[in-house]
């Protein structure tokens, strides 16, 4: 699958591993691929994202809302509507298991680092759908722009949710990519 990836696209995949590791994640997920786009200089995906109003800071702040295991931090207000006091739950749990017990992911803390870090379902999906987007656009390579388009599908989890919540739409993005690629070929 990777033989058709451009140099930049390969670099994004490598950077995603670094992103996941540095964030203490137990797997490479779609949001790490999204963040990794900003680690590779001068790529089409970032150009497209900039045109759509998404920059590194925005992605960083969205990832900041997730726990290292990719789950959203529990919403105390939402739980309060059910009569559940999250602070009280946290207090009880910490009393038995120590500070931070509720918020610390088991996977990251119970496993040694330096070894292989796997791509989870959402990251694999991004790459698979990226390939499909390249085929759809009749491009004979997979570039950063296709990785980005691969993220704009609900099955890709957090990256999809972040982009969609900031108004990035699949159809509009595809058109933008086509225009930019055509422009690049022409000029």
């Amino acid at each position, binding site marked *: 699958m990777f033989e058709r990836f451009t140099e930049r696209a390969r670099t994004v995949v490598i950077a995603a591993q670094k992103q996941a590791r540095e964030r203490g994640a137990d797997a490479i997920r779609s949001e790490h691929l999204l963040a990794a786009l900003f680690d590779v200089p001068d790529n089409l995906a970032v150009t497209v994202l900039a045109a759509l109003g998404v920059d590194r800071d925005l992605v960083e702040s969205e990832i900041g809302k997730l726990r290292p295991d990719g*789950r*959203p931090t529990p919403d105390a207000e*939402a739980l309060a509507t059910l009569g559940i006091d999250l602070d009280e*739950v946290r207090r009880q749990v910490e009393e038995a298991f120590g500070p931070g017990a509720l918020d610390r992911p*088991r996977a990251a803390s119970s496993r040694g680092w330096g070894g292989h870090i796997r791509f989870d379902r959402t990251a694999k999906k991004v790459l698979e759908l990226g390939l499909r987007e390249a085929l759809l656009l009749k491009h004979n390579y997979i570039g950063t722009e296709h990785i980005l388009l691969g993220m704009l599908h609900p099955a890709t989890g957090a990256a999809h949710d972040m982009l969609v919540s900031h108004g990035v739409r699949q159809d509009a993005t595809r058109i933008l990519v086509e225009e930019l690629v055509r422009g690049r070929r022409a000029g």
Partner: protein
Amino acid sequence: MTDATKVAAAASSRDPAVGLAAVASLRGLLESLEELQVTNARAQGWSWQQIADVLRVSRQAVHKKYRRFGF
């Protein structure tokens, strides 16, 4: 003031956005608690079968879900 707040709360609970967000948060909390308790049980030497019995799921299911944690 208190009554007005109550009415507002009652009204908003019929809002799917509020209700669904609450369910999603509850699921997240449930997952965190399960993880914590399974880790604790394993640390105390419980078998996967024992854990599965109390959680009322199959041994297979609990093992598959937590195997990657490395215990």
